[in-house]
């Protein structure tokens, strides 16, 4: 059919498993690498951030109650769904980041493979980070890694998909829920990822994605008393990072600072991110008749 108009996607926020617009009604124009208009994305407000935290907290205990096996299966399904929709991601990345189709494809490959890698970690974290401890008395003593709770994260500006995946997956694999501020420059792959998450059996609220200005809503998340930890990976301004870290101190949040130098997103992630958001709980029980 010649001259058919395409039905453009509306890019909204992802909160509690649903796609609401910002309660402020605001949007911002997203341009591609050449400056041409791509879409209007929702400009998240502090109230959206607040709602996202509520959704994250509401979802977290159920997510942690699921078995590690179940969480791993869900992360793997996310990889399956991502693989199935890879063309859409490649297109968005190519246009937004101004990279070649090949480079966009490599980023999508790496993102899918990263979900698969983290899926496999789900039921191994306890074995690698936990222990039984040989205390000097008639007690059975063991330590288990438990999720810290709700993590607020700022995704890297680029790479817009792989960076987001590299921040979110290690947070949720251990049973945390998260509120993540997507790349401000290239937010669209984040919302498309939200669509993938919404179709992957991931319970609503486990991941909440806000598009907007990290410097505006970040500090509200940093000071929010119901957020347990802060991942500042995507904050580029040292001043904003310090401001957020100072605000986090009021409630003794765990803070992962921005990387000292530009991370190599293709490198083996190791356990550093997973460990940043788990708490070790140690249990004692007497052994006797």
């Amino acid at each position: 059919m010649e001259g058919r108009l395409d039905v453009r996607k509306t890019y909204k926020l992802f909160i509690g498993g649903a796609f609401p617009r910002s309660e402020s009604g605001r949007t911002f124009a997203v341009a591609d690498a050449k400056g041409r208009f791509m879409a209007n994305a929702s400009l998240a407000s502090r109230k959206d951030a607040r709602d996202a935290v509520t959704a994250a907290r509401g979802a977290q205990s159920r997510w942690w109650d699921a078995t590690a096996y179940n969480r791993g299966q869900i992360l793997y399904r996310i990889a399956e769904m991502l693989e199935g929709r890879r063309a859409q991601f490649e297109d968005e990345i190519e246009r937004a980041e101004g990279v070649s189709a090949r480079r966009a494809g490599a980023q999508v490959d790496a993102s899918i493979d990263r979900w698969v890698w983290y899926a496999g970690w789900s039921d191994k974290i306890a074995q690698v980070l936990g222990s039984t401890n040989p205390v000097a008395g008639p007690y059975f003593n063991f330590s288990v890694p438990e999720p810290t709770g709700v993590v607020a994260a700022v995704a890297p500006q680029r790479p817009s998909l792989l960076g987001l995946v590299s921040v979110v997956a290690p947070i949720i694999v251990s049973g945390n829920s998260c509120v993540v501020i997507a790349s401000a420059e290239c937010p669209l792959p984040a919302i498309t990822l939200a669509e993938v998450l919404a179709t992957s059996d991931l319970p609503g609220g486990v991941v909440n994605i806000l598009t907007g200005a990290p410097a505006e809503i970040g500090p509200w998340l940093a000071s929010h008393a119901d957020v347990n930890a802060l991942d500042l990976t995507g904050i580029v301004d040292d001043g904003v990072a310090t401001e957020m870290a100072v605000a986090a101190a009021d409630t003794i949040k765990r803070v992962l600072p921005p990387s000292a130098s530009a991370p190599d997103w293709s490198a083996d992630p190791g356990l550093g991110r997973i460990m940043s958001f788990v708490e070790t709980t140690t249990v004692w029980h007497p052994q006797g008749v």
Partner: protein
Amino acid sequence: MTTLLDDGIATSNATLRRYLHGLPGVDQVGAEGRAAMLATRSIKAASKERAIDLAISMVDLTTLEGMDTPGKVRALCAKALRPDPTDPTTPHVAAVCVYGDMAAIARDAVGDIVHVAAVATAFPSGRASLAVKLADTRDAVANGADEIDMVIDRGAFLAGRYLDVFDEIVAVKEACGTAHLKVIFETGELRTYDNVRRASFLAMLAGADFIKTSTGKVSPAATLPVTLVMLEAVRDWHRQTGQRIGVKPAGGIRTSKDAIRYLVMVNEVCGVAWLTPDLFRFGASTLLNDLLLQRQRMRTGHYSGPDYVTID
């Protein structure tokens, strides 16, 4: 009698079992921890002197050997009345404890000054028919024993036949007449503190005047933690019924230091009301000499030696 029995707790094995198993349990590590902490109390000077005298007055001086003879029993009784011939201020012991067939000899030797406790009911194993056990009891009483130390049927207890154990105690108590009854659990065979707690309440329900840890023929015999559990039981029983029941650890208590640790435990778990031979006894033989040696040391200021206490 108590309202617990009136409530029908002992009408069947099932109801008795439900009652005993409904009692709060005992955590082994916690109980042993408390006993160990109480054992760190340091009792010195005047309080040590008084504790030694108290301990002496609580000893059931014991001989329970196959080779006991009238001569042996008479020597034991003489020592019971006059533990330290060099010091007439030394208190006499609470009782002598002998086999039932020696009770008459013992009674003749001690008169009314100390009690005569006889073991009965096929001591130490308890493996005989009820008729034999009751005959054993009546003989001892007829021969002059005013205290009977019976053993419970551990086989029945461990097999869950609580009512059989209960009925036996009731029958022996009746056969005692006016003699007072100590019920020996043989805690080394009961093995768990939960069992000791249940046995304590069972025995008190059945009419025991004293509950006693061991025969001294099985190891482990008395220990601080097992005695702690029994002291907690008599304390709780008193709160529920107003009755004070006595406790007797027996076997394995050899030194004054041990004895004083037991007294500290009685003091801090049950209170001063139990610090009397009417409610606490030591079943012991070698303990007495160590108490006497310590007493002499406190009197003279120097360490004493075995030549200064009598062997019997």
